[in-house]
């Protein structure tokens, strides 16, 4: 497993799923509302991305246009950043943002830490008190998986073989009536957007929450679900074939 790829997955797939966590869990949205702030993780030889908290919404995106950040958190290496995400290390913020940083993530009760810990708990649940819990865990895991496909496809050395073979276009990934996402191959890169595809060339649709959870948690296999009709795949299947090859590699980064 590559630490660099893991860093991209951690930022855009794991932390990136905060975007949906605050949408799905009202308590999380309240925590996110506590502070409007833009945080930049600047990882040496790794991702350089922004986490924007604004009015209870979260957005995680690459810093491509010199966007301003309130807090800059430099990380000396992907390994260091991965330790930060695992709670084993703490980056030292650059001076102008240090007080905001301390408020935002300086202690366990700081908003960022409450949110990431809360989301981690939700994602790690394997038993559910009710359907709602199962739905939230499944949907969040689904979004993390889709984000993970893009990051692993772009960065993992082996997965890149499959990513390069993808024809340009959009791939619709969905849990029917519950969650929609789009993988887009363009300009030699794969991107994930957590919205319904407008021009899909291929479709992968989990028929319901139970099917999605069964597949994401590894309790059932995709082939059986295709036979049973609970996992629908259609369209330009070579796109899905290559996405599946990337997807096979994603779990080792999302553990």
């Amino acid at each position, binding site marked *: 497993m590559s630490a660099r790829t893991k860093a991209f997955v951690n930022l855009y797939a794991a932390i990136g799923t905060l975007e949906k966590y605050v949408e799905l869990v009202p308590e999380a949205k309240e925590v996110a509302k506590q502070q409007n702030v833009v945080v930049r993780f600047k990882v040496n030889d790794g991702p350089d991305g922004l986490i924007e908290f604004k009015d209870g919404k979260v957005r995680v995106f690459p810093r491509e246009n010199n966007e301003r950040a309130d807090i800059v958190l430099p990380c000396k290496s992907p390994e260091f950043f991965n330790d930060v995400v695992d709670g084993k290390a703490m980056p030292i913020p650059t001076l102008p943002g240090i007080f905001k940083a301390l408020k935002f993530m300086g202690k366990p009760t700081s908003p960022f830490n409450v949110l990431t810990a809360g989301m981690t708990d939700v994602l790690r649940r394997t038993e559910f008190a009710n359907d709602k819990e199962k739905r939230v865990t499944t949907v969040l895991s689904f979004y993390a998986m889709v984000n993970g496909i893009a990051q692993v496809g772009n960065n993992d050395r082996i997965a890149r073989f499959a990513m390069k073979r993808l024809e340009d276009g959009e791939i619709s990934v969905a849990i029917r009536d519950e969650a929609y996402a789009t993988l887009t191959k363009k300009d030699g890169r794969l991107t994930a957007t957590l919205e319904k595809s407008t021009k*899909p060339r291929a479709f992968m649709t989990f028929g319901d929450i139970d099917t999605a959870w069964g597949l994401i948690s590894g309790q059932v296999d995709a*082939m*059986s679900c295709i*036979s049973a*009709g609970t996992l629908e795949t*259609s369209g330009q299947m070579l796109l899905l074939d290559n996405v599946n090859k990337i997807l096979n590699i994603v779990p080792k980064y999302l553990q």
Partner: protein
Amino acid sequence: MTYVYNKNVETMIRAGKVIPSGVYGHLGPAEGCMIPSSAFPFFASKGKGAEFWDVDGNRFIDYMCAYGPNVLGYNDPDVDAAAQAQAKLGNCMTLPAPVTVEFAEYLTQLVKKDWAFFCKNGGDVTSFAIMISRYYTGRKKIIFLHGYYHGVAPWTQHPDTPGTIEEDCKNGLYIPFNDIEALKEVIAKNKDKIACLIATPYMHGNFIDNELPKEGYWQEVRKICTENGIILIFDDIRCGFRLSLHGSDTYFGIEADLITFCKALANGYNVSALCGKNFLKGAASTVPYTGSYWLSAVPFAAGLATLKKLEKVNATDHFEKMGIRLITGLEKAAKARNIPLIASGHPSMFYLRIDDELKNFRLHQEWIAECVKRGVFLTNHHNHFICYAMTPELIDETIGICTEAMDVLVRNNPDKFK
């Protein structure tokens, strides 16, 4: 009235408990691109001629021919009689039966090669062809043409394929089909390192309009390979005995160094063959390669009977005529409904695709599903096959069913076909 598949589904549920994927590989719902799976049968109960019946008793006019092996017709009486006669004498014995030699003699004469080596599946003989090429040339690299399929052995795969490691693929060189300049360039960059070029006679990859070779393409490839000491391997597993009984290299006017056959070789009995030119016979003798059932006699008897009958009835002419009859009928029906149906490839192995703005095959897959539910077994992703048992009456029945399916498609998508 469309088909229902209750027993198919029941059987698949049982299968899923004891067989990986229920039905693995290209006959299964996933790799077989049965979209949606609810439109397709999963298990056949019997076959006869150009038709098969599923476990629910639904009848299908079959344009997949078991993905190629059914070349004369299911349960062809002549082939089955020959196989049964040999079975009474012996099948898998301590020594090979004389029919082995008879089959090799007949096959090599038919496909204009000097020797034949028998295995069981297509992948067995493509792998052996690569091994022989490497041994003979002392080189490692293999040229592939984009969209290729030569089996599932690791050397045919990419590093991201589960079960394949990067080292398995490090000697692959990949260039487009029909592109002589790309061939020259890859050879220049890998001078004296390339053992072989392996290719199907034309590009019949999945989900693409099939592409025939440009005028003079194979002649130029042949010349370049000879000049550079590169073994030219024709993978004729899919096209073999459907374009020509003399090998698809002959059909396209060249002579390959090695040529592989399987599918249509024995009308469903399990045998594959690698045939080659004399200068590679010593290498074929030297490279260790064998299998428990490779010299079983029954498939050889079946293969011999198959080839003799294909020759006797001029089968390739029939395949082409039936293919043209079907394509012409479907194109006419599609045109009348403003459906942009595209037929490509050789008529005996036609590929169909309904074009659409998003290039996402949805309309095409919907149409194919409606055809299958009414008793015409087509696929959306793969070229089709025609067997000798196909008749004009069955073709015309097919056109009728497929036209009805087109009407359903138009009704379901009124904005798409104005």
